[in-house]
């Protein structure tokens, strides 16, 4: 299986009044089809820029972003996004919110078909019976579940998750981690997850990429070759503890607190 996402030598700087502000430098990431890539790094290191590059919402100064064997030059219909803020539309029901991408990507699809697809996804994440509710009637965790459904409803090649669990309490977060594994089992997808949580990256990722401090470059790549769905207890076995300690060390280097390990 080839790589679905191929980021080759991407360098990018924002133009500001005081001159260019470099955020990414010679960044390389490869994500095979069907695999889950978690990206960690010090805050402000350009992780969100990375998501916008893959989504085709902006383009790098140098280097290339390839998606499904095509150079990304414009926004594509084959991407799904979820953010820390679930950004559901308050005037729509949960079901209508999940159907939104289909209205853009497949305007000709019959309404009943759109609805069936959305209902099936909502049932998968445990939101059966909440289809007719408004976002304001749901808890934060439930809203984030609905947001994940919206990212998946149009069967995108890749879903981009920009800290979607960051604002949730610890128990809800662990619930959602498990939901992610269940979703992947029933509805295989390729994912890029931006996160600050090392445990999250090890529990969910098939590979964990550590970015250096700004301008960010690929500092370290760790493979986590454990088939899913993974039990939560996995996080407490010796192997995982070792992995976490290596990642923690790498983050410290990225922050520049430890010259050499």
């Amino acid at each position, binding site marked *: 299986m080839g790589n679905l996402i191929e980021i080759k030598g991407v360098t990018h700087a924002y133009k500001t009044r005081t001159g260019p502000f470099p955020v990414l430098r010679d960044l390389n990431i490869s994500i095979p089809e069907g695999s889950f890539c978690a990206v960690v790094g010090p805050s402000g290191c350009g992780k969100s820029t990375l998501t916008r590059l893959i989504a085709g919402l902006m383009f790098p100064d140098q280097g290339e972003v390839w998606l499904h064997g095509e150079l990304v030059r414009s*926004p594509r219909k084959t991407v799904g996004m979820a953010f820390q803020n679930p950004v559901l*539309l308050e005037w729509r029901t949960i079901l209508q919110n999940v159907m939104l991408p289909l209205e853009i990507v497949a305007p000709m699809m019959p309404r009943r078909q759109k609805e069936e697809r959305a209902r099936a996804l909502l049932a998968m994440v445990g939101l059966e019976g909440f289809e007719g509710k408004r976002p304001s009637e749901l808890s934060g965790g439930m809203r984030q579940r609905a947001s994940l459904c919206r990212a998946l409803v149009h069967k995108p090649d890749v879903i981009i998750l920009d800290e979607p669990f960051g604002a949730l309490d610890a128990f809800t977060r662990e619930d959602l981690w498990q939901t992610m594994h269940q979703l992947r089992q029933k509805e295989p997808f390729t994912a890029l997850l931006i996160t600050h949580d090392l445990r999250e990256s090890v529990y969910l990722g098939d590979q964990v990429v550590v970015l250096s401090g700004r301008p960010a470059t690929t500092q370290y790549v760790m493979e986590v070759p454990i088939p899913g769905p993974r039990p939560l207890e996995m996080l407490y076995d010796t192997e995982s503890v070792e992995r976490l300690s290596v990642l923690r060390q790498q983050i410290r280097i990225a922050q520049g607190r430890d010259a050499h390990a």
Partner: protein
Amino acid sequence: MSLNWQKILVPIIALVLLLLFWEWLVWYKGWRSFQMAAPSQLWPAYKRFEPLFWQYGWQTLWRTVLGLAIAVVVGTFLGMIMGLSRIMNDALYPILVGFNAIPKATVVPVLALMFIGQHDFNTVMMAVLISFFPIAVSVAIGLSTLEPEYRDILRSLGASRFTVFWKIALPKTLPEFFGALKVSATLAFIGTNLVEIITPHGRGLGHLFQSAQTNSDFPLMFAVLIALAALGIALYYVVVALEMVFAGWAVRRAS
């Protein structure tokens, strides 16, 4: 149950007490109808000129509503331009603020001189000028404060700017828009009445008020004020009803 009675009865009793006090004060002071009106004189004053109330009330109402409708179109358009383009916002905002700061009573003679004899046009124009500002500002703020994630969700699917506007930005702005529309509805009434009173041309409740003033007919003046208040309240609740239909989701969330 007792709470409901309280909610209905208390305001009624308060109103009756106020009217009684007013009636007593006029009687006690011995004011006559060219000095002050008592509540009991208002209904007879209305009955005496009933056909005029309806005729003039209609003239005031349609010119206000037309002016408000045009203000909605103009204000929304300006708000869209300012909310979607940073440059246009920088260019237009100071001009709008400056224009809004002009006391509108001074604009009435200007309009009257510019368009001599075009009474309906003048009146509608005045209602527009006084009421478009809150709408323009609220739409502009609503559009410019749209979180980028909302836009990215659709833009990443290849949606056009128009689709993003139609599916997300516009509905998201509706609560602010209706808030401004309530203010504007009241302002539009002020606009029509300014013209009707300052440059009398024999039309509208403002004209009836003017002729009552000329005759020091206090009962008629007060009856006109109450008629104006009734029109204003009616228009306000029409806006509230529209808000419930088009932005009810936001109202429910607040309660």
